[in-house]
């Protein structure tokens, strides 16, 4: 088949070509990588994506602006409402919609809850890839608690379609703040367990330290963002660089690591979870318990002709969207800048020279989500 694109080199008998995916338990979805192997070393790697291409960008041109929000949800399906935000922010910018302060804080709370949920899924599946079953059982239990909190307010677990132009669709459930505070107490205790299970595990050390090192310059030039970039020592975080919603009101740090290896990426995600807990703690206190949850938005969303790019820092990095409007009630073009899409580009860089078994650890440290990569 012509998609193979990794032709055997004539006269070389020592290279074996191995196909991994699209059905592979450790590719986090439907990634296919064609690998050239020399013994256990990877000599060449060609990733193939597109097995989950769902014509997001074309179908969004045929939907009205509020309908598009529901589609953006389905991109990075592990982190729910985080995907809605860039699109909502871009359209709000174009229309000049004011968002009440309380709505911004609620949005940020959901944003950070989903970051925790997403990193929990990452932790469970990454450890599953490394051969450890039990972290998966713990992390999914905690994730269920988050989804329960979200479901009480938004009515759906994973893809709640909750943000809207000017705020959020409905006010939070009366229990929301208490539930969140309880969950944070629970989560802080759990983080100790997770540190033992993951960061301090000798198996994780042996399989990740010094594996898949990504240099700072290479990371920037490749357009990598999120925890993968910060693990290479670049303190770039859209939440600090171009603050949005309630992030200017809260205190948090950007954890970075100079190492750039797989362990550093694990470590940075852990520190991010601590920061999320910290942000949520502040927001539980700061958010007014009553007040408007939605600003004044026109009944028919018709942004003036023009374009706007907005980005947010989702669990995987800079998730951006370029919205082009021609003045009608349907977007002329919606182009998503996927964080995982950019991050996955470094697969050939990191794989080549690594051992075959390390490729699994490297891939899980990138945390790809194919809904957003293939769109």
């Amino acid at each position, binding site marked *: 088949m012509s998609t193979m*694109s990794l032709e055997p080199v004539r006269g070389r008998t020592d290279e074996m070509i191995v196909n991994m995916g699209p059905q592979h338990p450790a590719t986090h979805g439907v990634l296919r990588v064609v690998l050239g192997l020399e013994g256990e070393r990877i000599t060449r790697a060609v990733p193939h994506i597109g097995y989950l291409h769902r014509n997001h960008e074309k179908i969004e041109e045929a939907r009205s602006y509020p309908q598009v929000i529901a589609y953006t949800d389905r991109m990075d399906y592990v982190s729910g409402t985080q995907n809605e935000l860039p699109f909502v922010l871009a359209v709000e910018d174009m229309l000049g919609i004011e968002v009440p302060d309380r709505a911004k804080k609620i949005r940020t709370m959901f944003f950070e809850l989903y970051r925790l949920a997403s990193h929990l899924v990452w932790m469970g599946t990454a450890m599953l890839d490394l051969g450890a079953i039990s972290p998966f059982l713990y992390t999914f239990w905690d994730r269920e608690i988050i989804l329960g909190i979200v479901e009480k307010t938004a009515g759906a677990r994973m893809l709640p379609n909750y943000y809207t132009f000017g705020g959020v669709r409905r006010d939070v459930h009366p229990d929301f703040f208490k539930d969140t505070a309880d969950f944070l107490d629970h989560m802080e205790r759990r983080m100790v367990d997770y540190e033992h299970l993951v960061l301090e595990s000798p198996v994780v050390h042996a399989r990740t330290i010094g594996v898949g090192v990504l240099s700072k310059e290479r990371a*920037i030039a490749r*357009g990598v963002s999120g925890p993968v970039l910060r693990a290479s020592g*670049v303190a770039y975080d859209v939440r600090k660089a*171009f603050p949005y919603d309630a992030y200017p009101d809260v205190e948090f740090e950007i954890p970075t690591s100079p190492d750039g290896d797989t362990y550093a990426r694990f470590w940075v995600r852990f520190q991010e979870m601590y920061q999320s807990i910290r942000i949520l703690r502040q927001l539980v206190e700061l958010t007014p318990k009553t007040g408007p949850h939605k600003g004044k938005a026109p009944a028919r969303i018709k942004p003036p002709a023009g*374009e706007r790019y907005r980005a947010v820092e989702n669990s995987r990095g*800079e998730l951006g969207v370029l919205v082009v409007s021609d003045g009608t009630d349907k977007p002329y073009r919606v182009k998503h800048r996927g964080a995982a*899409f950019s991050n996955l580009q470094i697969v050939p860089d990191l794989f080549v020279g690594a051992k075959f078994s390390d490729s699994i650890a490297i891939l899980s440290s990138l945390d790809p989500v194919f809904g957003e990569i*293939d*769109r």
Partner: protein
Amino acid sequence: MEVRMKQERLFDEDVYTVHPEDYRALCERLAAEGYDFPRAISGLDMGYGLRVTLQLTRMKDLAKVTVRTDVPYEDPVVPSVTDLWPGVEWYEREAYDMLGIRFAGHPDLRRILLEDEWALHPLLKRYDTGGYPLPGWEPAPWPDPEPWTPPPPPEPEPEAEGEASEGGEAS
């Protein structure tokens, strides 16, 4: 060097609309100015031609620029900038896949999301959502003051100065 382009300020970004022949020269200049983080390359169907939008960030001071260039449907060739920013490699492949924009000098210009055998560039406006040609679709005429023509009120001369001052700010 003379670069045919229009410069505007949109929200927090500098937007350059540039003649396709000068696109590469402008990109080289921006790379020299220190724009190191490629955010995305997007392809757009403008109705009269295809547009490539390149978005860059400078990590040092978080300045953002957007570079646009328009090419006709008949010959949609744009120079590739993968050697300046390797991170646009997949975005250029995606723009080729979705809209058929060919990036000259791209190391591996294949389809990325669809299969190689497809003949269709589905994001073109001449197709409906299902990928079938829309009956009665006609391309719009090429815009008369070309998109990269600077707006008339400021005289055509200050454009070169604007460029120079832009370069000066960056350094």
